[in-house]
């Protein structure tokens, strides 16, 4: 293998990994606070991609306005989902709320199939994102270069919000102890809504970048990324934001490197992701950066 090919694969890995990271943050945040695996996260991501298609293709808005509309619409969808599917079950056993999440996921998938049909829609070309540049024999689209940067910026933003702001402090309190936080006068609903706002907006940003790279938009496009990013979040230690980003990068890189070094196994790329999940659960269930949680008796 030439150095050029290797560098290209490295770039492929970083770009795929950073997309995974971006979506994984959304998973991990909701889990960190509600102890809920938001199975509908991948489908919110899918809806965001459709919003972008509608904004730019059907209403022919310029991309920067579309992105703002996509952000707002996706956040609205995320918060609505929380209100309708999760809030009524706040005091119910954890299992019920998880089933509700799975139901919400199917609802969104089937709604999208019903509304937009299974025919793939082309993601609008945001010219400056899809332009490709060649650096040292490595072809990269601008989206490929921007994605890791956006991911890192989003990570620091999320870390800043959770560690330095008042609402972040409330979030951490809620994640430590739900009941006590409530007793201390923290407005739980507001905290949870904020979490969903952040998670959904990350899904929206992820969808725009994902769509520029993989422009075939179908109702089930969120399923695989959803599962993969969930694995990334578990790998990094679910509930830990930095861990999610780390997990996303590792997963993306592992998938690409499998194809690079073992080309005969290209058909088993998805299997790698699930093998990683199983190994992590067996060896270090708390993930790479996860804290050990002691159950209170």
């Amino acid at each position: 293998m030439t150095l050029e090919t290797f560098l290209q694969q490295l770039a492929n890995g970083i770009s795929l990994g950073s997309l995974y990271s971006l979506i994984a943050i959304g998973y991990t945040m909701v889990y960190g606070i509600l102890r809920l695996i938001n199975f509908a996260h991948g489908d919110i991501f899918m809806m965001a991609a459709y919003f972008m298609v509608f904004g730019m293709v059907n209403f022919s808005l310029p991309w920067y306005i579309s992105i703002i509309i996509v952000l707002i619409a996706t956040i609205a969808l995320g918060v609505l989902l929380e209100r309708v599917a999760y809030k009524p079950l706040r005091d119910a056993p954890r299992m019920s709320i998880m089933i509700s999440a799975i139901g919400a996921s199917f609802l969104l998938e089937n709604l999208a199939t019903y509304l937009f049909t299974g025919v793939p829609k082309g993601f609008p070309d945001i010219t400056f994102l899809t332009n490709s540049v060649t650096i040292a024999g490595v072809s990269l689209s601008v989206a490929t270069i921007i994605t890791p940067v956006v991911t890192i910026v989003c990570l620091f933003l999320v870390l800043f919000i959770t560690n330095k702001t008042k609402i972040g402090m409330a979030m951490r309190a809620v994640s430590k102890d739900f009941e006590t936080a409530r007793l201390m006068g923290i407005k739980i609903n507001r905290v949870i809504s904020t979490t969903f706002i952040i998670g959904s907006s990350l899904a929206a940003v992820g969808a725009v970048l994902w769509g520029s790279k993989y422009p075939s938009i179908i109702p089930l496009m969120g399923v695989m990324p959803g599962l993969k990013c969930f694995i990334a979040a578990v790998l990094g230690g679910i509930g830990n934001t930095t861990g999610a980003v780390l997990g996303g990068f590792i997963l993306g890189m592992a998938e690409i490197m499998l194809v690079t070094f073992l080309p005969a196994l290209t058909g088993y790329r998805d299997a790698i992701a699930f093998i990683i999940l199983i190994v992590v659960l067996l060896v270090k269930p708390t993930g790479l950066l996860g804290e050990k949680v002691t159950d209170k008796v």
Partner: protein
Amino acid sequence: MKRLLSLALSATMVISLFTGCTKQEQAPATSTSGDSDVIKIGVFEPLTGENGGGGLQELDGIKYANKMYPEVLGKKVELVVVDNKSDKGEATTAVTRLIEKEGVVAIIGSYGSGVSIAAGDIIKNAKIPAMGASCTNPMVTQGNDFYFRACFLDPFQGEVMANYAIQQGAKTAAVIMQNGDDYSVGLGNFFINSFKKLTGNDASVVDISEFQVNDTDFNAILTNIKAKNPDVIFAPSSATTAPLIIKQARALGITCPIMGGDTWENPAVVEVAGADAEGIVLSTFFDENDPATEEAKSFVEGYKKELAGKEPIIPAVAALGYDAYILMLDAIERAGSTDGVAIRDALNATKDFEGVTGVINFTPEGDADKNIAVIKTVKGGQFVYIDSVEVK
């Protein structure tokens, strides 16, 4: 508030329960009366999932045929459409529903060989004749007396594409296939065999890569291929996947021709891949500018109006769906009954039937005996006819 909400929720549930019941009650009612004045033909197509786009095109062709020829044996034909969701598991459920619950006398479909193969055994055991429109894998009809098809087969298609690639001066090829998809793997392997045989060089296929259903990232595979610098890439895949492969290949700076199979003749490919779709090569069943029969002429004229600009060209799968329907209708008419075995025998006896996609006879295996494929490319955002290839 909470109580009100739960009350409202349970009310909707109860109501939906009742609507479910009424539907179920209606179905047997029509089927009992169906014995007297309606003949039900099942349409078994993917309307959602990765092949949803192609399935819808084929369904449109079948519906149009039904509009043109609404009656057989003096009774009205009712199409019962089920969605197999491009999924082998769903396919068996869907076809069982057609046979057991809906009581259809014949089945048309499906787009996608994998789902057709999955449904084959059920069709065979129920002795209900089925007519595939565009499922090209040989295994669909193999060892199945009741499965017929209106299109050519993958070994033929693979050979045509290999031939064409070599004619264009290709000496090496790379192949990308979808793991677990009978159509993609089948066609890919037939291409590989033909290409090796025609070049007389076992090393002429420089790379064979597989991907999985719903994969969107092909950069890694394509980077490997780029390093091996083939003269042509053959990537039989669904219309959902194709534009992703094409776009990513071009973004990586791969300039060689990219070729695919019949599934690529779908406006979604051109729409999603945009300018990158220019120059892709595919083989298909039918060309609207070269109608082979009288039936084809009237079909092209009528269907163009029916489409009313919805699609720029008549998709070949719509033409095949149309053919599948009229072939089945013709057989029912000649059988003079709706008995499965009688229809099958009538289908076997089909002789020089004038369809839209040519004159059709069936081989003993139940395949349409066709030896012409149309090769098309994309130019200026349109599918353009290049050549008709006949293989003896």
